[in-house]
């Protein structure tokens, strides 16, 4: 499998052509304010800005056309490096590049190009609008890409299912020495338990009842411990199966410190059986049992904050995560797996549901990201040793309407309902902030 590399991404919709990125680059690379010498160039007048920047191509034309061997792609970083000692200043490379990624620096008298400032590009933080991002998730691909996908291809999830994405990553990470317990819900419903005479998951799966997943898994883990085998006990349960009917056994297992990783895929309701509300369904949301009509405007109660309840069990590890923040998710997975060797680890992953939340399936990541950017969902982690802290703090959150408007399930909201949700978001944020101040050392 080929390597993937970190890259600078540009969102033209957010760019207003201010030129701060070019100034930052010129400063960093030439020590001057001469933006003509910047290796990143923004073209355009009032709108429709375009980017001229080296893409660090996988199949770089500049490298092939260079007659002097002065350009070379670094296999480790992916950066195309320029060697001044070999360059003959023929400028053929500038003709070869389709992106205007390498150009003549007239002052220096040589070509110049982006070297990503050794993985810490100066232009990215300089952009006041967030139009530039340095995407580093390639590391995940490089690391886990070769690991076996323990989930069969062609599962029966809805198109664009976020939970499938989450499961594939999670199973890759926990590896084959795992027993998966997954109670009725979307996870078995999409085929992890195997339909059609073949199994969907390439590790042992036990499909327990909604009431008893944590208890059943605790029994399995204890048996393996008794016979001295190191086996990862993993539960992947829905929010309904964890926060409603399965809560008693979840709470019991956490209190006893059973050695397992319990992952909750929170799609905020019973999405597998026709979108009924659960105690994790947020206020105002339409579900088939919190309908919208003359006498009802969606759910009238706020969601139960299950991860905070788990913090109050003083679990070995508790964290919230989102698939829109993969590196964060992977870090938490690693910590949770480690913690589950000695105690109960709980990972609560927000998982937008295109079918039940009523949004086009291509907006999955966008919805997941907006949830975090508005502070509707907060990403934090907790250990008894270090207490609770944010892993991604959003200091200037977008108004919650930016999140709500993306989904059909909130379409009916009256202004006072939106106001209620915004108030709750602020309240929740303050509540968690207070917990970070008074570290919950247990």
């Amino acid at each position: 499998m080929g390597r993937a590399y970190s890259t600078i991404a540009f969102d033209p919709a957010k760019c207003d052509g201010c030129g701060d990125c070019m100034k930052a680059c010129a400063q960093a690379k030439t020590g001057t304010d001469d933006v003509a010498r910047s290796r990143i160039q923004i073209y355009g007048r009032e709108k429709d800005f375009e980017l001229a920047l080296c893409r660090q191509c996988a199949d770089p034309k500049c490298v092939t056309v260079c007659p002097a061997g002065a350009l070379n792609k670094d296999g480790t970083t992916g950066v195309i490096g320029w060697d001044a000692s070999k360059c003959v200043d023929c400028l053929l490379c500038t003709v070869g590049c389709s992106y205007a990624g390498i150009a003549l620096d007239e002052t220096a008298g040589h070509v110049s190009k982006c070297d990503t400032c050794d993985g810490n590009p100066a232009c990215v933080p300089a952009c006041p609008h967030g139009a530039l991002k340095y995407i580093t998730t390639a590391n995940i691909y490089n690391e886990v890409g070769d690991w076996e996908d323990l989930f069969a291809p062609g599962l029966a999830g809805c198109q664009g299912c976020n939970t499938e994405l989450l499961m594939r990553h999670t199973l890759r990470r926990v590896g084959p020495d795992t027993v998966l317990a997954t109670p009725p819900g979307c996870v078995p419903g999409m085929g992890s338990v195997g339909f059609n005479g073949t199994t969907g998951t390439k590790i042992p799966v036990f499909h327990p009842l909604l009431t008893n997943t944590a208890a059943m898994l605790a029994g399995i883990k204890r048996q393996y411990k008794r016979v001295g085998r190191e086996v990862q006990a993993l539960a992947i349960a829905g929010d309904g199966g964890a926060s409603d009917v399965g809560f008693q056994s979840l709470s019991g297992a956490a209190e006893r410190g059973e050695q397992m990783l319990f992952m909750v895929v929170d799609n905020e309701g019973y999405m597998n059986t026709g979108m009924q509300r659960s105690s994790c369904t947020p206020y105002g949301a339409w579900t088939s049992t919190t309908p919208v009509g003359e006498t009802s405007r969606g759910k009238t109660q706020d969601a139960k904050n299950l991860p905070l309840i788990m913090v109050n069990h003083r679990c070995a590890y508790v964290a919230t995560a989102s698939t829109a923040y993969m590196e964060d998710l992977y870090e938490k997975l690693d910590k949770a797996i480690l913690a589950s060797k000695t105690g109960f680890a709980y990972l609560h992953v927000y998982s937008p549901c295109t079918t039940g939340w009523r949004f086009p399936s291509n907006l999955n990541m966008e919805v997941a990201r907006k949830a975090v950017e508005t502070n509707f969902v907060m990403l934090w982690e907790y250990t008894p040793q270090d207490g609770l802290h944010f892993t991604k703090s959003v200091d200037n959150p977008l108004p919650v309407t930016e999140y709500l408007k993306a989904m059909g399930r909130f379409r009916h909201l009256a202004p006072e309902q939106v106001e209620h949700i915004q108030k709750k978001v602020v309240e929740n944020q303050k509540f968690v902030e207070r917990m970070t101040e008074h570290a919950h050392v247990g």
Partner: protein
Amino acid sequence: MGGQTVSLVMAGSGGAGVVTAGSLLLEAAARAGWYAYMTRSSGPQIRGGEAAVMIRLGTEPLASHDDRFHLLVGVDWQNVGRFAAEIPLGPESLIIGDPGEGETPEVFTRSGAQQIALPMKALAKTVPDGRPNMVAFGAIAGMIGLTEDVVVGVLRDTLKRKGEAAIAASLAAFRAGVEAAADFPAVPRLPATQADTSERWSITGNEATGMGALRGGVRFVAAYPITPATEVLEWLAPALPKVGGVLVQAEDELASINQIIGGSYGGVPSLTATSGPGLALMTESLGLAVAAEVPIVVIDVMRVGPSTGIATKSEQADLNIAVYGLHGDAPHLVLAPTSVADCLFTTQWAVHLAESLQTAAIVLTDQAMGQARAVMPRSAAVSFIGQREKPAALAEGVQYKRYANTASGVSPMAIPGMAGYTYTADGLEHNETGTPSSQASDHQAQLDKRLRKLTGYNYGDHWADITGDEDADTAILTWGSSAGPAREALERLRAAGHAVKLVAVRLISPVQPEKFAEALKGVERVLVVEQSHSGQFHRYLRAQYDLPRQVKALHHPGPLAVRPGAIVEHITQWS
């Protein structure tokens, strides 16, 4: 049953739109003046599973599916072969498949049915936004005699919100189907009718159950979603507030049954709906309702068990747990509707009985009944309504005895808060006042009383539906959704000159030995029909009733439906 009927199946992978097309077909048939009966079958997975709608249309009301289907239309064949056992075909049947979707599975073709190619996908592509399921709908409509004007009306009404373009696209695809099937081999064609359809209903068993609850006076429902009972809740959720009631979605089945026990203790007729796994969780609390004499109704829409089983398909195998599942000696009511329409009556009656007798009533419907949609004559309204005996004014200085050992066994029940009527409702054994007691005499007295109120009550003629020849020496004994095919079998047998009687038991518990003996007077042989692997109903009858010497049992597990032909065969080949 009687009249002319045609039976057909539309099948395809999940998302092929067969359920949508089937629903449109049913609606159009209803408007054309025909009666209809539609069940559906699907796999448990979220997407890419298989789905089928089985539809029977007729000129007279229908109680059951036929033995075989005249027509099977496969919009595609992905995994549809898995339904083969549920879709019996014969040499007279016709299979329509899309040649672009591959070969018809061998499990279907081995029936000897004639095969016809209909390029549904290709025909759909000739129409902007055309869909293959609408082509299938058109082909079927043309073959069975459904006219376009009726279909146009249905499409207009159902697709109104999607706009003119969507209606035009559906209609064009529909026409392409009609045209393509014009010279296909014949299947039974139903005659046009001028019937007055204003007194008919298009209703599912689950909707009828909800309506029965409402009419019986239920004003509080707490429940936890479970397939295939959820539609009962979905029907009741918007209906209850209109009559001052309320539905609460609980966090699990333990919560839902205990919420309704609480609601009922507070004086409101209360009900919950679930399926087998939920009933299992509720059994501890059913015991509480029996001991504390709090009226409640629990609907169990049975599915294939045990455990998660086959959540989307039907079986009659919760009889044992419903009758015997409670701990201790806990007499209670177990009832079962005998048809889609009867879900209304039986639920309403169950509410009435639970309230009158201050006990728990379990109503056993099933997936085949609950999720079946029937176009049928509107049910007559019955007057049963939940009415609890309330205490009369107390004389000065007399203590209220909540569990007074009355002659009938029913003790007047006060509502908490009534001055002078304070009492403890409890699951601990108690004396007449409700105070806990571990005395043998109190236990004996309360056990007697709780049994007496059920056995001494006059349930009238509603304990069973008895039809057929009064002096027949052969009887079919059945219950629940197996009563449908049994009714059709009875008609066929009688039409062929056999004298047969049908007893479809509605009141499973408490047993009615005298009425049962009366119903079976002169009967020398009995065929017991049910859909369970172990023959639960047969064993129950054996344990509770005196049966004639000659007894045969026709029983098999779900999800295969009992077919009328199988019953007829058992009777006619009885030598």
